[in-house]
Protein backbone atom coordinates (compact mmCIF):
# COMPACT_ATOMS: atom_id res chain seq x y z
CA UNK A 1 0.00 0.00 0.00
CA UNK A 2 0.90 3.68 0.09
CA UNK A 3 3.07 5.11 2.84
CA UNK A 4 4.40 8.61 3.38
CA UNK A 5 7.62 9.22 5.28
CA UNK A 6 8.38 12.64 6.73
CA UNK A 7 12.08 13.23 7.24
CA UNK A 8 13.44 15.32 10.05
CA UNK A 9 15.69 17.45 7.91
CA UNK A 10 16.67 18.27 4.37
CA UNK A 11 17.64 15.61 1.87
CA UNK A 12 21.11 14.45 2.85
CA UNK A 13 23.06 11.29 3.58
CA UNK A 14 21.61 11.27 7.10
CA UNK A 15 18.57 9.69 5.38
CA UNK A 16 20.48 7.76 2.73
CA UNK A 17 18.99 4.41 3.74
CA UNK A 18 15.51 5.45 2.71
CA UNK A 19 16.56 6.97 -0.58
CA UNK A 20 18.73 3.96 -1.43
CA UNK A 21 15.88 1.56 -0.66
CA UNK A 22 13.61 3.63 -2.83
CA UNK A 23 16.02 3.80 -5.75
CA UNK A 24 16.99 0.12 -5.50
CA UNK A 25 13.36 -0.89 -5.57
CA UNK A 26 13.44 -2.49 -2.11
CA UNK A 27 10.14 -0.89 -1.16
CA UNK A 28 8.57 -2.00 -4.40
CA UNK A 29 9.62 -5.55 -3.65
CA UNK A 30 7.76 -5.29 -0.34
CA UNK A 31 4.70 -3.91 -2.08
CA UNK A 32 5.13 -0.52 -0.45
CA UNK A 33 4.64 2.64 -2.49
CA UNK A 34 6.69 5.13 -0.47
CA UNK A 35 6.64 8.90 -0.72
CA UNK A 36 9.50 10.71 1.01
CA UNK A 37 8.85 14.24 2.25
CA UNK A 38 12.02 16.15 3.03
CA UNK A 39 11.99 18.24 6.19
CA UNK A 40 13.42 21.61 6.98
CA UNK A 41 14.41 23.87 9.81
CA UNK A 42 10.89 24.84 10.80
CA UNK A 43 9.04 21.70 9.98
CA UNK A 44 8.12 19.72 13.06
CA UNK A 45 7.64 16.12 11.90
CA UNK A 46 5.44 15.45 14.92
CA UNK A 47 3.03 18.13 13.77
CA UNK A 48 2.96 16.74 10.26
CA UNK A 49 2.16 13.32 11.66
CA UNK A 50 -0.56 14.68 13.91
CA UNK A 51 -2.11 16.51 11.01
CA UNK A 52 -2.21 13.34 8.96
CA UNK A 53 0.37 14.62 6.47
CA UNK A 54 2.53 11.52 6.93
CA UNK A 55 2.26 7.92 8.17
CA UNK A 56 5.78 7.53 9.50
CA UNK A 57 8.30 10.11 10.67
CA UNK A 58 11.99 10.16 11.39
CA UNK A 59 12.34 11.84 14.77
CA UNK A 60 14.61 12.10 17.77
CA UNK A 61 13.34 10.25 20.80
CA UNK A 62 13.37 13.25 23.20
CA UNK A 63 11.06 15.19 20.88
CA UNK A 64 8.88 12.12 20.36
CA UNK A 65 8.51 11.45 24.07
CA UNK A 66 7.84 15.11 24.82
CA UNK A 67 5.12 15.12 22.19
CA UNK A 68 3.71 11.94 23.67
CA UNK A 69 3.44 13.66 27.02
CA UNK A 70 1.59 16.47 25.27
CA UNK A 71 -1.00 13.90 24.25
CA UNK A 72 0.14 12.91 20.80
CA UNK A 73 0.38 9.09 20.98
CA UNK A 74 3.70 8.51 19.19
CA UNK A 75 5.13 5.03 19.09
CA UNK A 76 8.64 4.00 18.08
CA UNK A 77 8.48 1.12 15.63
CA UNK A 78 12.15 0.85 14.72
CA UNK A 79 15.49 2.40 15.64
CA UNK A 80 18.05 2.26 12.82
CA UNK A 81 20.52 4.58 14.61
CA UNK A 82 22.30 3.02 17.54
CA UNK A 83 24.48 5.91 18.62
CA UNK A 84 24.00 9.63 18.89
CA UNK A 85 25.87 11.99 16.58
CA UNK A 86 25.29 15.08 18.71
CA UNK A 87 28.15 17.07 20.08
CA UNK A 88 29.12 20.53 21.16
CA UNK A 89 32.03 21.95 19.21
CA UNK A 90 33.99 24.70 20.90
CA UNK A 91 36.82 26.95 19.86
CA UNK A 92 39.97 25.83 21.62
CA UNK A 93 40.94 29.45 22.19
CA UNK A 94 38.05 29.86 24.63
CA UNK A 95 39.95 27.63 26.99
CA UNK A 96 37.06 25.25 27.60
CA UNK A 97 38.29 21.82 28.54
CA UNK A 98 35.73 20.45 30.95
CA UNK A 99 32.01 20.97 30.52
CA UNK A 100 31.29 20.75 34.22
CA UNK A 101 33.51 23.65 35.14
CA UNK A 102 34.10 25.72 32.01
CA UNK A 103 30.68 26.25 30.46
CA UNK A 104 29.47 28.71 33.08
CA UNK A 105 29.33 32.22 31.75
CA UNK A 106 29.77 31.10 28.14
CA UNK A 107 27.49 31.45 25.16
CA UNK A 108 26.39 28.20 23.56
CA UNK A 109 24.57 27.68 20.27
CA UNK A 110 21.59 25.34 20.36
CA UNK A 111 19.05 24.14 17.82
CA UNK A 112 15.43 24.61 18.76
CA UNK A 113 12.17 23.48 17.16
CA UNK A 114 12.19 20.23 19.14
CA UNK A 115 15.95 19.63 18.95
CA UNK A 116 16.76 21.43 22.16
CA UNK A 117 15.77 18.62 24.55
CA UNK A 118 19.07 16.67 24.61
CA UNK A 119 20.96 19.87 25.32
CA UNK A 120 18.55 20.93 28.06
CA UNK A 121 18.87 17.49 29.68
CA UNK A 122 22.62 17.74 29.60
CA UNK A 123 22.63 21.14 31.20
CA UNK A 124 20.20 19.82 33.78
CA UNK A 125 22.58 17.03 34.66
CA UNK A 126 25.44 19.51 34.85
CA UNK A 127 23.28 21.71 37.06
CA UNK A 128 23.78 24.74 34.80
CA UNK A 129 21.01 27.26 34.35
CA UNK A 130 20.21 28.15 30.75
CA UNK A 131 19.09 31.62 31.65
CA UNK A 132 22.49 33.22 31.26
CA UNK A 133 24.49 35.05 33.88
CA UNK A 134 27.79 34.11 35.54
CA UNK A 135 26.55 30.83 36.94
CA UNK A 136 24.64 29.60 33.92
CA UNK A 137 25.11 29.47 30.18
CA UNK A 138 23.73 31.91 27.65
CA UNK A 139 21.81 30.08 24.98
CA UNK A 140 21.59 31.23 21.40
CA UNK A 141 19.01 29.91 19.02
CA UNK A 142 21.49 28.67 16.49
CA UNK A 143 20.44 29.36 12.93
CA UNK A 144 20.99 27.15 10.00
CA UNK A 145 24.74 27.10 9.90
CA UNK A 146 28.03 27.12 11.73
CA UNK A 147 28.67 30.83 11.37
CA UNK A 148 28.24 31.65 15.07
CA UNK A 149 31.39 29.71 15.77
CA UNK A 150 33.33 31.13 12.83
CA UNK A 151 32.18 34.63 13.77
CA UNK A 152 32.97 33.93 17.41
CA UNK A 153 29.48 34.84 18.43
CA UNK A 154 29.33 31.68 20.52
CA UNK A 155 31.99 29.75 22.40
CA UNK A 156 30.47 26.46 21.34
CA UNK A 157 27.83 25.39 18.89
CA UNK A 158 25.82 22.26 18.42
CA UNK A 159 27.15 20.06 15.65
CA UNK A 160 26.52 16.58 14.34
CA UNK A 161 29.51 14.32 13.92
CA UNK A 162 28.43 13.73 10.36
CA UNK A 163 27.55 17.20 9.25
CA UNK A 164 28.16 20.55 10.87
CA UNK A 165 31.48 19.50 12.34
CA UNK A 166 32.82 19.00 8.85
CA UNK A 167 31.46 22.30 7.72
CA UNK A 168 33.59 23.91 10.40
CA UNK A 169 36.57 21.99 9.13
CA UNK A 170 35.73 22.90 5.52
CA UNK A 171 35.56 26.53 6.50
CA UNK A 172 39.27 26.38 7.27
CA UNK A 173 39.55 25.60 10.96
CA UNK A 174 41.66 22.62 11.86
CA UNK A 175 40.94 19.91 14.41
CA UNK A 176 43.51 21.57 16.64
CA UNK A 177 41.56 24.79 16.71
CA UNK A 178 38.54 22.91 18.05
CA UNK A 179 37.54 20.94 21.05
CA UNK A 180 34.49 18.69 20.90
CA UNK A 181 32.20 17.11 23.46
CA UNK A 182 30.17 14.19 22.16
CA UNK A 183 26.94 13.52 24.02
CA UNK A 184 27.86 9.83 23.89
CA UNK A 185 31.08 10.51 25.78
CA UNK A 186 29.34 12.75 28.30
CA UNK A 187 26.87 10.01 29.10
CA UNK A 188 23.90 12.06 27.99
CA UNK A 189 23.32 10.49 24.59
CA UNK A 190 19.69 10.09 23.59
CA UNK A 191 18.34 8.04 20.71
CA UNK A 192 18.18 9.82 17.38
CA UNK A 193 16.49 9.21 14.05
CA UNK A 194 14.00 6.55 15.06
CA UNK A 195 10.86 5.72 13.09
CA UNK A 196 7.60 6.73 14.74
CA UNK A 197 3.92 6.26 13.95
CA UNK A 198 0.69 7.13 15.70
CA UNK A 199 -0.84 4.43 17.93
CA UNK A 200 -3.90 4.41 15.74
CA UNK A 201 -1.88 3.33 12.73
CA UNK A 202 -0.91 0.12 14.52
CA UNK A 203 -4.54 -0.86 14.91
CA UNK A 204 -4.95 -1.16 11.17
CA UNK A 205 -3.63 -4.61 10.14
CA UNK A 206 -3.10 -3.57 6.55
CA UNK A 207 -0.99 -0.61 7.57
CA UNK A 208 0.95 -2.81 9.95
CA UNK A 209 1.80 -5.15 7.10
CA UNK A 210 2.96 -2.17 5.07
CA UNK A 211 5.03 -0.91 7.98
CA UNK A 212 6.69 -4.29 8.37
CA UNK A 213 7.64 -4.24 4.72
CA UNK A 214 8.75 -0.64 5.00
CA UNK A 215 11.04 -1.29 7.96
CA UNK A 216 12.52 -4.39 6.36
CA UNK A 217 13.22 -2.57 3.11
CA UNK A 218 14.60 0.45 4.94
CA UNK A 219 17.08 -1.64 6.87
CA UNK A 220 18.18 -3.29 3.62
CA UNK A 221 18.64 0.20 2.27
CA UNK A 222 20.72 1.23 5.27
CA UNK A 223 22.87 -1.83 4.99
CA UNK A 224 23.47 -1.19 1.32
CA UNK A 225 24.22 2.47 1.99
CA UNK A 226 26.72 1.67 4.73
CA UNK A 227 28.51 -0.76 2.44
CA UNK A 228 28.48 1.54 -0.60
CA UNK A 229 28.84 5.08 0.79
CA UNK A 230 29.77 6.62 -2.56
CA UNK A 231 26.85 5.16 -4.42
CA UNK A 232 24.54 6.10 -1.56
CA UNK A 233 25.82 9.67 -1.70
CA UNK A 234 25.15 9.71 -5.44
CA UNK A 235 21.58 8.60 -4.85
CA UNK A 236 21.09 11.30 -2.23
CA UNK A 237 22.45 13.88 -4.62
CA UNK A 238 19.97 12.81 -7.26
CA UNK A 239 17.12 13.30 -4.84
CA UNK A 240 18.22 16.69 -3.60
CA UNK A 241 15.99 19.27 -5.24
CA UNK A 242 17.96 22.29 -4.09
CA UNK A 243 21.09 21.20 -5.90
CA UNK A 244 23.13 22.65 -3.09
CA UNK A 245 24.90 19.52 -1.82
CA UNK A 246 28.38 18.47 -2.83
CA UNK A 247 29.26 14.85 -3.42
CA UNK A 248 32.36 15.03 -1.21
CA UNK A 249 30.39 16.25 1.76
CA UNK A 250 27.64 13.64 1.27
CA UNK A 251 30.10 10.79 0.92
CA UNK A 252 31.85 11.83 4.10
CA UNK A 253 28.51 12.21 5.83
CA UNK A 254 27.54 8.69 4.77
CA UNK A 255 30.75 7.33 6.20
CA UNK A 256 30.08 9.03 9.50
CA UNK A 257 26.46 7.90 9.54
CA UNK A 258 27.60 4.34 9.00
CA UNK A 259 29.41 4.59 12.35
CA UNK A 260 26.18 5.52 14.10
CA UNK A 261 24.35 2.60 12.49
CA UNK A 262 26.78 0.03 13.80
CA UNK A 263 25.24 -2.33 16.31
CA UNK A 264 21.65 -1.80 15.27
CA UNK A 265 19.58 -4.09 13.07
CA UNK A 266 16.67 -1.70 13.37
CA UNK A 267 15.26 -3.18 16.54
CA UNK A 268 15.05 -0.81 19.49
CA UNK A 269 17.27 -2.00 22.29
CA UNK A 270 15.41 -1.61 25.54
CA UNK A 271 18.48 -0.57 27.51
CA UNK A 272 19.08 2.34 25.12
CA UNK A 273 15.46 3.34 25.46
CA UNK A 274 15.70 3.21 29.24
CA UNK A 275 18.88 5.30 29.24
CA UNK A 276 17.22 7.93 27.09
CA UNK A 277 14.18 8.06 29.35
CA UNK A 278 16.35 8.33 32.44
CA UNK A 279 18.31 11.21 31.00
CA UNK A 280 15.16 13.02 30.04
CA UNK A 281 13.61 12.45 33.47
CA UNK A 282 16.72 13.59 35.26
CA UNK A 283 17.55 17.16 35.97
CA UNK A 284 15.94 18.92 38.84
CA UNK A 285 13.18 21.37 38.41
CA UNK A 286 12.53 21.30 34.69
CA UNK A 287 12.87 17.81 33.24
CA UNK A 288 12.01 17.29 29.59
CA UNK A 289 9.38 14.71 30.52
CA UNK A 290 7.65 14.45 33.88
CA UNK A 291 6.91 10.74 34.05
CA UNK A 292 8.23 7.56 32.48
CA UNK A 293 6.19 6.96 29.37
CA UNK A 294 4.13 3.81 28.86
CA UNK A 295 3.90 2.00 25.57
CA UNK A 296 6.08 4.48 23.74
CA UNK A 297 7.62 1.74 21.65
CA UNK A 298 6.67 -1.58 20.18
CA UNK A 299 8.80 -4.40 18.92
CA UNK A 300 6.00 -6.07 16.97
CA UNK A 301 6.98 -4.47 13.68
CA UNK A 302 10.68 -5.24 13.87
CA UNK A 303 9.92 -8.72 15.20
CA UNK A 304 7.81 -9.46 12.16
CA UNK A 305 10.26 -7.74 9.84
CA UNK A 306 13.38 -9.58 10.92
CA UNK A 307 11.88 -12.98 11.61
Amino acid sequence: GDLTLQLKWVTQAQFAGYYVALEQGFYEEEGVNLTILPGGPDIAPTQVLAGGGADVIVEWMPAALAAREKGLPLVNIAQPFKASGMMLTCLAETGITDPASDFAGKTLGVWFAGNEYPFLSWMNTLGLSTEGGEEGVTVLKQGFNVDPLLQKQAACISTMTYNEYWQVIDAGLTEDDLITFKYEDQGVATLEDGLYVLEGTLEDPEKVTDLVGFVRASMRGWQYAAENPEEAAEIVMENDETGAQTIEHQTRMMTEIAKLLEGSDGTLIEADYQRTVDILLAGGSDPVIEAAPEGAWVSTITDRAFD
Partner: protein
Amino acid sequence: MRRADLVPILTVLLVIVAVWYLGAIRMNATWERDQAARAGTEVTWSQLIPLTLTQDRPVLPAPHQVAVGLWEGVAGQAITSRRSLVWHAWVTLSATLAGFAIGTAAGILLAVGIVHSRSMDQSVMPWAVASQTVPILAIAPMVIVVMASAGVTGLLPKAIIAAWLSFFPVLVGMVKGLRTPDAMQMDLMRSWSAGRPQVLARLRLPSSLPYLFASLKVAIAAALVGTIVAELPSGATAGLGARLLSGSYYGQTVQIWSALFMAAILAGLLVALIGLIERRVLARMGLAA
Protein backbone atom coordinates in the same frame (compact mmCIF):
# COMPACT_ATOMS: atom_id res chain seq x y z
CA MET B 1 13.67 54.90 -17.80
CA ARG B 2 14.89 57.68 -19.99
CA ARG B 3 18.20 57.94 -21.76
CA ALA B 4 19.22 60.96 -19.73
CA ASP B 5 18.86 58.96 -16.52
CA LEU B 6 21.42 56.41 -17.61
CA VAL B 7 24.50 58.35 -16.57
CA PRO B 8 23.32 59.07 -13.02
CA ILE B 9 22.08 55.52 -12.56
CA LEU B 10 25.34 54.06 -13.76
CA THR B 11 27.28 56.43 -11.55
CA VAL B 12 25.30 55.43 -8.50
CA LEU B 13 25.69 51.76 -9.39
CA LEU B 14 29.43 52.26 -9.77
CA VAL B 15 29.63 53.85 -6.35
CA ILE B 16 27.65 50.97 -4.88
CA VAL B 17 30.00 48.43 -6.43
CA ALA B 18 33.03 50.32 -5.15
CA VAL B 19 31.62 50.51 -1.63
CA TRP B 20 30.78 46.85 -1.88
CA TYR B 21 34.36 45.93 -2.78
CA LEU B 22 35.69 47.96 0.12
CA GLY B 23 33.17 46.35 2.43
CA ALA B 24 34.10 42.90 1.19
CA ILE B 25 37.77 43.54 1.87
CA ARG B 26 37.07 44.87 5.32
CA MET B 27 34.63 42.20 6.41
CA ASN B 28 36.59 39.29 5.01
CA ALA B 29 39.91 40.52 6.37
CA THR B 30 39.14 39.44 9.93
CA TRP B 31 39.05 35.83 8.90
CA GLU B 32 42.32 36.02 6.96
CA ARG B 33 44.02 37.68 9.91
CA ASP B 34 42.66 35.02 12.28
CA GLN B 35 43.89 32.30 9.96
CA ALA B 36 47.28 33.93 9.79
CA ALA B 37 47.38 34.28 13.53
CA ARG B 38 46.50 30.59 13.94
CA ALA B 39 49.29 29.73 11.53
CA GLY B 40 51.56 32.14 13.36
CA THR B 41 52.28 34.34 10.37
CA GLU B 42 51.51 37.92 9.37
CA VAL B 43 49.69 39.12 6.26
CA THR B 44 50.43 42.38 4.53
CA TRP B 45 47.75 44.49 2.87
CA SER B 46 48.88 43.55 -0.60
CA GLN B 47 48.51 39.87 0.24
CA LEU B 48 45.27 40.50 2.06
CA ILE B 49 43.29 42.13 -0.73
CA PRO B 50 43.45 39.28 -3.27
CA LEU B 51 42.85 36.79 -0.47
CA THR B 52 39.72 38.58 0.78
CA LEU B 53 38.26 38.72 -2.69
CA THR B 54 38.65 35.03 -3.46
CA GLN B 55 37.50 33.29 -0.28
CA ASP B 56 35.31 30.22 -0.55
CA ARG B 57 33.10 31.25 2.35
CA PRO B 58 33.41 35.02 2.47
CA VAL B 59 31.39 36.96 5.02
CA LEU B 60 30.58 39.28 2.15
CA PRO B 61 31.32 37.91 -1.30
CA ALA B 62 32.84 40.33 -3.78
CA PRO B 63 30.66 41.48 -6.68
CA HIS B 64 32.56 39.45 -9.22
CA GLN B 65 32.13 36.31 -7.13
CA VAL B 66 28.39 36.86 -7.09
CA ALA B 67 28.44 37.58 -10.80
CA VAL B 68 30.27 34.32 -11.45
CA GLY B 69 27.87 32.45 -9.14
CA LEU B 70 24.93 33.96 -10.94
CA TRP B 71 26.37 33.25 -14.36
CA GLU B 72 27.12 29.63 -13.52
CA GLY B 73 23.70 29.22 -12.02
CA VAL B 74 22.00 30.63 -15.07
CA ALA B 75 24.17 29.70 -18.02
CA GLY B 76 26.46 27.02 -16.66
CA GLN B 77 23.73 24.39 -16.24
CA ALA B 78 21.03 22.79 -18.28
CA ILE B 79 17.94 24.69 -17.24
CA THR B 80 16.30 21.49 -16.08
CA SER B 81 19.19 20.77 -13.74
CA ARG B 82 18.65 21.07 -9.98
CA ARG B 83 21.65 23.35 -9.93
CA SER B 84 20.23 25.76 -12.43
CA LEU B 85 19.03 29.04 -11.01
CA VAL B 86 16.65 29.28 -13.94
CA TRP B 87 14.93 26.14 -12.80
CA HIS B 88 14.64 27.36 -9.20
CA ALA B 89 13.45 30.73 -10.40
CA TRP B 90 10.80 28.95 -12.43
CA VAL B 91 9.59 27.01 -9.39
CA THR B 92 9.34 30.20 -7.41
CA LEU B 93 7.79 32.07 -10.29
CA SER B 94 4.99 29.58 -10.80
CA ALA B 95 3.92 29.75 -7.15
CA THR B 96 4.30 33.54 -7.22
CA LEU B 97 2.06 33.86 -10.24
CA ALA B 98 -0.55 31.49 -8.81
CA GLY B 99 -0.58 33.39 -5.52
CA PHE B 100 -0.65 36.70 -7.31
CA ALA B 101 -3.63 35.58 -9.36
CA ILE B 102 -5.52 34.39 -6.29
CA GLY B 103 -4.63 37.52 -4.32
CA THR B 104 -5.56 39.84 -7.14
CA ALA B 105 -8.89 38.13 -7.72
CA ALA B 106 -9.69 38.18 -4.01
CA GLY B 107 -8.66 41.82 -3.71
CA ILE B 108 -10.77 42.92 -6.64
CA LEU B 109 -13.83 40.94 -5.57
CA LEU B 110 -13.62 42.25 -2.02
CA ALA B 111 -13.15 45.79 -3.29
CA VAL B 112 -16.21 45.51 -5.52
CA GLY B 113 -18.18 44.23 -2.55
CA ILE B 114 -16.91 46.97 -0.28
CA VAL B 115 -17.76 49.68 -2.74
CA HIS B 116 -21.28 48.39 -3.16
CA SER B 117 -22.15 47.34 0.36
CA ARG B 118 -21.77 49.67 3.25
CA SER B 119 -21.91 46.87 5.77
CA MET B 120 -19.06 45.11 3.99
CA ASP B 121 -17.10 48.33 3.95
CA GLN B 122 -17.42 48.75 7.67
CA SER B 123 -16.79 45.14 8.63
CA VAL B 124 -14.14 43.96 6.19
CA MET B 125 -11.80 46.92 5.97
CA PRO B 126 -10.59 47.05 9.60
CA TRP B 127 -9.99 43.31 9.60
CA ALA B 128 -8.18 43.44 6.30
CA VAL B 129 -5.74 45.83 7.94
CA ALA B 130 -5.45 43.51 10.95
CA SER B 131 -4.89 40.54 8.65
CA GLN B 132 -1.72 42.14 7.36
CA THR B 133 -0.32 42.48 10.84
CA VAL B 134 -0.54 38.73 11.40
CA PRO B 135 3.03 37.57 10.97
CA ILE B 136 2.06 35.23 8.15
CA LEU B 137 5.71 34.86 7.26
CA ALA B 138 6.46 33.61 10.73
CA ILE B 139 3.71 31.05 10.63
CA ALA B 140 4.36 30.07 7.02
CA PRO B 141 5.81 26.71 8.10
CA MET B 142 2.67 25.99 10.09
CA VAL B 143 0.46 26.98 7.23
CA ILE B 144 2.32 24.57 5.02
CA VAL B 145 2.01 21.75 7.53
CA VAL B 146 -1.65 22.45 8.19
CA MET B 147 -2.40 22.56 4.49
CA ALA B 148 -0.47 19.35 3.98
CA SER B 149 -2.67 17.74 6.60
CA ALA B 150 -5.68 18.78 4.56
CA GLY B 151 -4.07 17.11 1.58
CA VAL B 152 -2.97 20.34 -0.08
CA THR B 153 0.68 20.16 -1.04
CA GLY B 154 3.06 21.39 -3.68
CA LEU B 155 2.51 24.75 -5.21
CA LEU B 156 -0.75 25.74 -3.55
CA PRO B 157 0.35 26.31 0.07
CA LYS B 158 3.11 28.63 -1.12
CA ALA B 159 0.66 30.35 -3.43
CA ILE B 160 -1.77 30.92 -0.56
CA ILE B 161 0.89 32.64 1.51
CA ALA B 162 1.81 34.72 -1.51
CA ALA B 163 -1.85 35.55 -2.01
CA TRP B 164 -2.26 36.57 1.61
CA LEU B 165 0.43 39.20 1.17
CA SER B 166 -0.66 40.38 -2.25
CA PHE B 167 -4.40 40.76 -1.80
CA PHE B 168 -4.05 43.74 0.51
CA PRO B 169 -2.42 46.25 -1.83
CA VAL B 170 -4.90 45.26 -4.52
CA LEU B 171 -7.81 45.68 -2.13
CA VAL B 172 -6.69 49.10 -0.97
CA GLY B 173 -5.87 50.30 -4.48
CA MET B 174 -9.09 49.00 -5.96
CA VAL B 175 -11.30 50.47 -3.26
CA LYS B 176 -9.67 53.79 -3.95
CA GLY B 177 -9.86 53.26 -7.70
CA LEU B 178 -13.48 52.18 -7.78
CA ARG B 179 -14.32 55.26 -5.79
CA THR B 180 -12.44 57.71 -8.01
CA PRO B 181 -15.32 58.54 -10.33
CA ASP B 182 -16.35 61.96 -9.13
CA ALA B 183 -19.85 63.03 -8.23
CA MET B 184 -20.35 64.52 -11.67
CA GLN B 185 -19.56 61.29 -13.46
CA MET B 186 -21.82 59.36 -11.13
CA ASP B 187 -24.57 61.93 -11.64
CA LEU B 188 -24.24 61.62 -15.40
CA MET B 189 -24.76 57.88 -15.10
CA ARG B 190 -27.78 58.54 -12.92
CA SER B 191 -29.25 61.03 -15.34
CA TRP B 192 -29.05 58.29 -17.97
CA SER B 193 -30.63 55.96 -15.38
CA ALA B 194 -27.84 53.40 -15.69
CA GLY B 195 -28.01 50.33 -13.42
CA ARG B 196 -25.33 49.30 -10.91
CA PRO B 197 -23.70 46.70 -13.15
CA GLN B 198 -23.52 49.25 -15.95
CA VAL B 199 -21.97 51.82 -13.65
CA LEU B 200 -19.46 49.21 -12.50
CA ALA B 201 -18.52 48.01 -15.96
CA ARG B 202 -18.51 51.30 -17.78
CA LEU B 203 -17.42 53.79 -15.18
CA ARG B 204 -15.92 52.34 -12.01
CA LEU B 205 -13.76 49.61 -13.50
CA PRO B 206 -12.22 51.69 -16.29
CA SER B 207 -11.48 54.57 -13.97
CA SER B 208 -9.89 52.25 -11.43
CA LEU B 209 -7.37 50.80 -13.88
CA PRO B 210 -4.50 53.20 -13.14
CA TYR B 211 -4.90 52.44 -9.44
CA LEU B 212 -5.13 48.74 -10.17
CA PHE B 213 -1.86 48.72 -12.05
CA ALA B 214 -0.07 50.70 -9.37
CA SER B 215 -1.22 48.17 -6.78
CA LEU B 216 -0.42 45.21 -8.98
CA LYS B 217 3.20 46.27 -9.03
CA VAL B 218 3.29 46.27 -5.25
CA ALA B 219 1.30 43.06 -5.08
CA ILE B 220 3.54 41.05 -7.37
CA ALA B 221 6.58 42.05 -5.36
CA ALA B 222 4.74 41.04 -2.19
CA ALA B 223 3.73 37.73 -3.75
CA LEU B 224 7.36 37.01 -4.56
CA VAL B 225 8.40 37.73 -0.98
CA GLY B 226 5.61 35.46 0.26
CA THR B 227 6.65 32.60 -1.99
CA ILE B 228 10.29 32.87 -1.07
CA VAL B 229 9.56 32.87 2.63
CA ALA B 230 7.17 29.97 2.20
CA GLU B 231 10.00 28.08 0.58
CA LEU B 232 12.38 28.72 3.45
CA PRO B 233 11.10 26.22 6.04
CA SER B 234 11.00 23.23 3.76
CA GLY B 235 14.65 23.50 3.01
CA ALA B 236 14.96 20.50 0.75
CA THR B 237 12.41 21.41 -1.83
CA ALA B 238 13.06 23.52 -4.83
CA GLY B 239 12.80 27.27 -5.36
CA LEU B 240 14.86 30.38 -4.75
CA GLY B 241 13.88 30.39 -1.07
CA ALA B 242 15.17 26.85 -0.68
CA ARG B 243 18.34 27.88 -2.49
CA LEU B 244 18.74 30.77 -0.10
CA LEU B 245 18.26 28.53 2.87
CA SER B 246 20.50 25.71 1.77
CA GLY B 247 23.13 28.27 0.91
CA SER B 248 22.81 29.60 4.39
CA TYR B 249 22.82 26.10 5.87
CA TYR B 250 26.10 25.23 4.21
CA GLY B 251 27.61 28.66 4.69
CA GLN B 252 27.73 29.19 0.93
CA THR B 253 27.48 32.95 0.93
CA VAL B 254 28.04 33.15 -2.79
CA GLN B 255 25.06 30.88 -3.29
CA ILE B 256 22.93 33.04 -0.99
CA TRP B 257 23.81 36.19 -2.84
CA SER B 258 23.29 34.58 -6.22
CA ALA B 259 19.83 33.42 -5.18
CA LEU B 260 19.13 36.87 -3.78
CA PHE B 261 20.14 38.54 -7.02
CA MET B 262 18.14 36.05 -9.02
CA ALA B 263 15.15 36.95 -6.87
CA ALA B 264 15.90 40.61 -7.41
CA ILE B 265 16.08 40.13 -11.15
CA LEU B 266 12.85 38.18 -11.08
CA ALA B 267 11.15 40.93 -9.09
CA GLY B 268 12.50 43.53 -11.49
CA LEU B 269 11.27 41.60 -14.50
CA LEU B 270 7.83 41.01 -13.04
CA VAL B 271 7.36 44.65 -12.10
CA ALA B 272 8.66 45.74 -15.49
CA LEU B 273 6.28 43.32 -17.18
CA ILE B 274 3.32 44.76 -15.35
CA GLY B 275 4.58 48.22 -16.20
CA LEU B 276 4.66 47.21 -19.86
CA ILE B 277 1.14 45.82 -19.79
CA GLU B 278 0.06 48.95 -17.95
CA ARG B 279 1.49 51.19 -20.61
CA ARG B 280 -0.10 49.12 -23.38
CA VAL B 281 -3.52 49.02 -21.79
CA LEU B 282 -3.55 52.63 -20.69
CA ALA B 283 -2.30 53.77 -24.07
CA ARG B 284 -5.10 51.90 -25.76
CA MET B 285 -7.47 53.58 -23.39
CA GLY B 286 -5.93 56.94 -24.06
CA LEU B 287 -4.80 57.24 -20.44
CA ALA B 288 -1.07 57.04 -21.01
CA ALA B 289 0.85 59.58 -19.00
